[in-house]
């Protein structure tokens, strides 16, 4: 990487990358749901939520909690959830992260994973409970494989997000 920007254009590109990479990658992760994958049981992890919490846990100061509202709305629209489900669950997750951040100042890798696992469990069970309240009678056992898989996919996604972050901040 070159250390000195040669022109204003280079500076503008670097700044745009710096600012928009997190939001763009999260939106791309949301759009994964629009890929032509047809399966009959929920086993594929929710990458949108994983990318979202990976960015949030990596860079706590970057986003304030209300950024989850428009992103959640987009996720609801793409995924076919009732409008408001991801908006509420994602924002509640971010608010919970803010509380955790104010209590725990030293976080390491395992701590991050634990927090992420709790957030994923809250999100998956929240989605299940909301569907249940709306007249769906899916048994709780159906979502457990996906829950486990999503938790184990967190480190993978966190690595990818970390690499993106280094590229974002490289100059």
């Amino acid at each position: 990487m070159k250390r000195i920007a040669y022109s204003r254009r280079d500076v503008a590109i670097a700044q745009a990358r710096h600012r928009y990479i997190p939001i763009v990658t999260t939106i791309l992760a949301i759009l994964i749901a629009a890929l032509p994958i047809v399966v009959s049981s929920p086993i594929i992890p929710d990458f949108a939520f994983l990318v979202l919490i990976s960015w949030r846990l990596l860079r706590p100061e970057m986003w304030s909690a209300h950024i989850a509202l428009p992103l959640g709305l987009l996720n609801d629209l793409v995924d076919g959830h009732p409008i408001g489900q991801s908006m509420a669950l994602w924002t509640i997750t971010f608010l919970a992260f803010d509380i955790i951040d104010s209590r725990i100042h030293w976080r390491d890798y395992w701590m991050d994973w634990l927090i992420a696992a709790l957030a994923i469990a809250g999100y998956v069970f929240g989605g299940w409970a909301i569907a249940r309240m709306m007249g769906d009678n899916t048994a709780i056992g159906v979502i457990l494989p996906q829950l486990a898989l999503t938790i184990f996919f967190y480190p993978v996604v966190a690595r990818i997000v970390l690499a993106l972050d280094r590229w974002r901040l490289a100059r």
Partner: protein
Amino acid sequence: MAPPSTRRPGFSRRAQYGLFIGYIVAVGGVLLAVLLMIIATVDPRGFSALRGAALDVTAPISGAGRSAVRFVGNAVDGIGDYFFAASKNAAMRRELDATRQKLVEARAIEAENQRLQALLDVTQDTAARVATARIVGSSFDSSRRLATLSAGSSKGIASGMPVRGPEGLIGRVIETGRFASRILLVSDGSSNIPVQLIRSGIPAIATGRGDGTIEIKPLEVGKNPFRKGDILVTSGTGGIFPPNIPVAMVVRADRDITVARPLADPAKIDFALVMRVYQPAADAPIEGSDALADAPVEAPR
């Protein structure tokens, strides 16, 4: 490195107020989202314009690579086959023996059927067809079982229409955009379909379980009338779904629970047929309309 505290941004009043307002927006947003969900529960068709537009925007992504569906589906199947090879082999051998006997019976029935059809000059009723479209995607990261269809209201598809594949019923349209629509699959937890047992005509309700299977609940109490291998078809009761569309085959029949697998696997179907909503009572011609007022109400046949 200890992460910087996000709670107190410093001594700047402006930054502190900004943070505070940020939290108010977030909490207010959560309340708004809950309100939106309540509205969605009361009126599932609310925001249909917005949802339809979102479907239209994402449909090209889904439609672009249908081959990927096959790839992923085959890969998942392949892994499963590898793990369950031995038990599958034994099961298939048993199935083969049973099928041989059935085949002979089926040939006899087919011959009979052909004779009867020629007799009655039955033609396939194509008037119920609205559109033919491809299944281009499905929800795969939540407990809801939804699929995306590559045709929308521009082809006459409307919310509520039943969708079937060559093997059987796939589901029902719940949202439409101009060029795409969303289907509630029969295996979704909120899908209830009136069915009947093809063998004896016993009525039942087929409710999705969310994991690709269906639970069959008989309407009459008593001994479980279902056996493994039974085929269920729609009964046409209550409208929406036309009668005699194959729905599912029973894979497990215990004393208090009957689990069936849908005959139409959305992952393997290329084309789906959208049909008109079945409403026999409304479509039937009114007999003797001038004498309608004093005529006794006929029970629907």
